[in-house]
């Protein structure tokens, strides 16, 4: 199991343990972390699972594909570390990864 930390917009921190192979979005849903909607179920179609990776982790995960980059273009409050959490797969190298969630997905 891998430790993944979710940090809510208000600063609340939630430590979770997840199996490798799932996406950050799935990790949030399975661990009852609020703040990720994921309306399309993880197909990269809705951009309601926006999250920020911490700077140290942003280049240690698979980089966004063309679809994800385009979907992120019009999302509110994006930064250089913005990702769609359904598209970031957690692998065994990601123990200790931390993810911050935006104030709203809409």
């Amino acid at each position, binding site marked *: 199991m891998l430790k993944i930390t979710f940090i809510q917009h208000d600063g609340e921190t939630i430590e979770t343990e997840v199996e490798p192979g*799932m996406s950050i979005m*799935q990790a949030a*849903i*399975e661990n*009852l972390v609020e703040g990720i909607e994921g*309306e*399309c*179920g*993880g*197909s*990269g*179609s*809705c*951009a309601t699972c926006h999250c920020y990776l911490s700077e140290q982790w942003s280049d240690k995960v698979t980089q966004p594909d063309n*679809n994800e980059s*385009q*979907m992120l*273009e*019009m*999302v509110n409050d994006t930064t250089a570390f913005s990702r769609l959490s359904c598209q970031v797969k957690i692998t065994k190298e990601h123990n200790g990864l931390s993810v911050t969630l935006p104030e709203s997905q*809409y």
Partner: protein
Amino acid sequence: MKRCIIVGGGHAGAEAAFELRKKGWQGEIVLISAESYLPYHRPPISKTYLTGETPLKRLYIKPAAAYEKANICIKLTTKVVDIKPLEHTVTLDSGELLTYDKLILCTGCSSRKLTVPGAELDNVFSIRTLDDIEHIARTLGSNQPPKHIVMIGGGYIGLETAASFKKLGHHVTILERSSRILNRIAAEPIAAHITKLHQAQGVNIFTDKSVTALTGEHAVQAVYCSEGESFKADIVVIGVGAEPNTCLANYAGLQTKQGRIEVNQQGKTSVPDIYAAGDCTIGIEPFSGQNTTLESVPSAVQQAKMVAATICEVPQPQIQVPWFWSDIFDCKLQIAGLYQGYDTVIERVYNCDSKSYWYVKSHKIIAVTCINCPSDFQAGKKILKENITISLSELKNVVNPIIPNTSPVPA
């Protein structure tokens, strides 16, 4: 303690349950589903679930622990057989009687049956539920030689499922009754693009085919059409639309329209303390003002939020731009807005695989359909949501950004 009963475990039912809790409902929440699974994401079942890429546990909208945490009592494999509005009771198929303070009907739709001789033969399936997919997967078997599969109906479900069958290596034929696929639900250029996509992958599409009979001894073997033409079939999948489940609504005496439960903009039905959300309803869609039903996940979720807000007496959720999506082979189709009533279509073409169609009514954009260009979809959604005025004459010119002062999209 007060009790809210939700009938139906689809997207609307699950969302309503969690939203009630989130918005402050203090009483009991009982979610009743006829299916044996926790509420699951329906769109992937005919796609990545059928092809084996997504396991069952990744389909659930929420894990079992989430229901416990939110104190939602979920009754699976349970049917509501009657509603008595005056007594405020529902009767379950076990005979148990439950009282309610508030009742939300999220009964959804069932697959429309094909009424031709032979429709009851073995290996003839519909696609609506996980059980439907399980039956199909069992019949296909694993590591079996390719089968001949005939899809009846060229709507989204038929086309998406055909793509999955093709990915699994089967021989797939789509028979569509009208002169083109996606008739009435997508404009001509979209239908043409998706037809090409299927044909390139070896799916046969035949239009103007009216199915008259399915034949076979126990299991189906062939599909016959009106001009005597026949198609070999080991499996037939019927995708000819859906019928709203309004049986319970009728028992309860709810007002219906076009076979659906009429709801107002707060999700209330014509009977006090009974609400409805999702595909089984008809009402004013808040964004467009049209009296309609949008059979889509985002719409079901939004309606469930509206009902929860009404019941909890908190402000209604922000109005959302209606949107839809479909994944067919490697093609991502995304639609924002409602295109009905358009007078002009503007095409924005990046290349033959990536383009968008902008629907205009009285010089105003009302919808956009995007083929493999998510940024146009996102721009379209923003334009519609924020009522942004853009230059229509510049729209077809892909070197210019759609919304001024944003960077152009690398195709």
